[in-house]
């Protein structure tokens, strides 16, 4: 009798549901879809810039559109996904860029804390610049 290795089928579109059951895979997919919101939001900003270049009338119209309920709902979603992106991105920085100091690695939690601090600082600066 010869060998007959069995290859388990991988459900290509839903592997993170039943094939790989652990929650980490759903969290991963959630992380990946943050790109949709970031992409669309970027497009909105570009649209805003385009309107800005067209003159005050179109820019004001653009700003008015942002006040519609649909736009608000989208931005609230986008905001939560953006937060998720930031957290997942900063949490893995020690893995992507481990640092050595002397004979040992700088602790991962320190690297993460520094990133969170930078995040807060940048956010405050932008808020200050816009709000001032």
């Amino acid at each position, binding site marked *: 009798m010869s060998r007959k290795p069995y290859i388990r089928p991988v459900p290509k579109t839903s592997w993170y549901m039943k094939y790989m059951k652990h929650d980490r895979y759903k969290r991963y997919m959630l992380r990946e879809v943050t790109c949709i919101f970031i992409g669309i939001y970027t497009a909105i900003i570009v649209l805003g810039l385009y309107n800005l270049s067209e003159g005050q009338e179109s820019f004001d119209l653009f700003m008015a559109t942002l006040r519609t309920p649909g736009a608000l709902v989208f931005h609230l979603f986008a905001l939560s996904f953006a937060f998720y992106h930031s957290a997942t991105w900063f949490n893995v920085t020690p*893995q992507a860029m481990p640092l050595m100091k002397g*004979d040992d690695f700088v602790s991962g939690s320190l690297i993460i804390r520094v990133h969170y601090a930078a995040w807060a600082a940048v956010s405050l600066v932008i808020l200050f610049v816009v709000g001032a």
Partner: protein
Amino acid sequence: MSETRTIKIEILRYRPEIDSSPVLQSYRVPCPQEWVVLDALDYIKNNIDSSLSYRWSCHMAVCGSCGVMVNGEPMLACKTFLREMGDTVRVEPLLNFPIERDLVVVIDDFLENLKSLKPYIIRKTEKPVEEGTHLQTHAQLKRFKQYTLCINCLLCYAACPQYALNTNFIGPSALALAHRYNLDSRDEGYAMRQEIVASPEGVWECSFVGACSEVCPKHVDPASAVQQMKITSTKDYFLRFLGGKR
């Protein structure tokens, strides 16, 4: 001796001469407090069903033979305590590998990938033995040490969706071992390993799910190795583009 309960072990069995696809078989097994999954498998093999096939040897989490899926998560059977599980425990062969039989999977692919990465010290000129050992500072050792701890149990492959979706991917453990040699102060083989590391099936198949590092029983961080190699490969790519060489 502490109390012994009886638990149900469900094993995904595949006997190529009988089964067209794997089937679940259940066994009732007494389960002392101290038992790991491997002890239960041994109990079944020795007392209930001698035809059950699985790999094992050291029973101390260092030989890397006994990787299996326990309740859907890749684990070493010899280091997974049944006391931490419910009354039904499902044991399946490692995910993402072809099943040879029962809990035994085919790992040829990994061995070939590992070999292709030249996981050994490469030097322009060999140091003669008479000259003694190299010096290596604590910092130099520390840089690569964690990556030497890989026991090749391949739990990381079973946890990696990118390997599941494309088995041509070189995969976490093999890449981490390449990184181990790249980081070794005694090695000069970086450029040769890049041929594979920086190929489409190397680090670029990785999407940093990070599961490999989460399931590693030896706390190796393959995901980190791969990200670091993406960064060096990117620097490399632009340097080569600019005519520089590494």
